């Protein structure tokens, strides 16, 4: 990314504002995920309710960012790194908003789970949640720093999350086979694991966008940031 400032100060301000808004939205999304996980582990129905309401703020931020991007596109006709930044911001917020929704889904399942005693002590689920949250945090930090290597590292972590999911699913299956009374709670826990796995996918998307934004290279569906080959 070019660090030099625009000759046009107003334009520079708009880009700075956009960056800030994306970051703020990212922070809110992290908050809803960590809150929902906390509500799960501490069986906190009040917190879960609060997180569900919290999502409205995130949705509003998405709308605001979209609007700002449209305005910049219409007024400035951005090119090169500015263009990549703005088009990526437009896509980033979609993934962020989806992560927020998944946070809501977690809290909804938590509220259902909390109406019954805890099925089992949670072991892999908190680890999986930690990994997913770390991915999200790292993807957002890579965005702030414009660091494609850090973004690349996020992409590679997604495999760990997928492995956790398989493990959690298998374990819950044994509980369900043991006693049909477990099914209601086990399927809720399985859903939560699935939501976490999806959040990992969205964090991977964010990381791929960071790579494109900085390097101008599309690594979607290949997942690799290879050596420079772009001709000049």
């Amino acid at each position, binding site marked *: 990314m*070019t660090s030099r400032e625009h*000759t046009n100060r107003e*334009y520079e301000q708009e880009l700075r504002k956009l960056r800030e808004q994306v970051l703020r939205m990212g922070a809110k999304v992290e908050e809803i995920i960590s809150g929902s996980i906390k509500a799960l582990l501490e069986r906190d129905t009040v917190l879960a309710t609060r997180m569900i309401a919290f999502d409205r703020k995130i949705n509003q931020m998405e709308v605001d960012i979209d609007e700002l991007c449209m305005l910049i596109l219409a007024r400035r*006709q951005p090119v090169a790194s500015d263009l990549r930044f703005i088009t990526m911001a437009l896509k980033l917020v979609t993934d962020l908003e989806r992560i927020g929704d998944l946070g809501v889904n977690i809290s909804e399942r938590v509220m259902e789970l909390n109406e019954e005693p805890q099925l089992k002590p949670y072991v892999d689920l908190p680890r999986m949640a930690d990994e997913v949250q770390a991915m999200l945090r790292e993807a957002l930090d890579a965005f702030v720093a414009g660091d494609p290597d850090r973004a690349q590292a996020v992409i590679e972590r997604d495999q760990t999350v997928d492995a956790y999911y398989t493990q959690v699913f298998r374990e819950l299956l044994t509980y369900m086979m043991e006693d049909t009374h477990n099914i209601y709670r086990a399927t809720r826990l399985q859903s939560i694991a699935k939501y976490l796995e999806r959040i990992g996918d969205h964090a991977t998307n964010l990381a791929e966008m960071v790579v494109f934004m900085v390097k101008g290279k*599309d690594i979607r569906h290949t997942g690799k940031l290879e050596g420079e080959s772009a001709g000049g």
Partner: protein
Amino acid sequence: MSPPSVTSQDRNQDRNQDRPTKLAVRDLSVFYGEKRALAPMTMDIPEKHVTALIGPSGCGKSTYLRSLNRMNELIPSCRVTGDVRLDGEPIYGPGIDPVVVRRRIGMVFQRSNPFPKSIFENVAYGLRIGGMKSREDIAGRVERALSQAALWSEVKERLQDSALGLSGGQQQRLCIARALAVEPEVLLMDEPASALDPIATAHIEELIDELSHDYTVVIVTHNMQQAARVSDWTAFFYMGELVEYDRTNNIFTKPSKSKTEDYITGRFG
């Protein structure tokens, strides 16, 4: 996200597959007296494409453009070194008549400069001094050139009126028709739309696109959006040097040089 350079619908790449080089520029340098205006540069301009030259004022792009049809020779202190080949033939070669070069490589200027004559005579002028006599032939060529310049339907009823009565946009298209009448192969355009309103500009840009099917077009423009809109290839000049030359899609989405990036995003000076 899809960066345009790797998609199959990339018009530039598809079009470029079978397009040979029309103008091969080799180590071209231009001096005004002692001062070097252009550092030695090498560049292949593809046939039947639009190549845009961009860069800040004084970067050498107009000097470069003028050296492509030996127009610089009209400036007394100007000296050119290096080589420009049109279809492999050196245009600066010994015994090459610059007038013949300029007939094959036509030029359109920033300010439309019609002669104070009728619309018809403006377009016919080049043909007459080229020795064409037949009224019918001349009339045919004039109509063809005016049609190619997308002006025919607007002026066919008033060919004998003075060209100076046309609007700015029409005058510029008339100048393009005048350049096309002698059937050049390359058309050099020096900011052809900078003095026109947005609608007249849109007409010229549409026309450039049309012309690129039959002609090799090289255009100097200060309007970067215009370069992005009309060209297949873009060359960025800075302080007498060719900084970057690449497909327009690449230049405006992911230029490889930071100087280009700074300039096109507006981070200069």
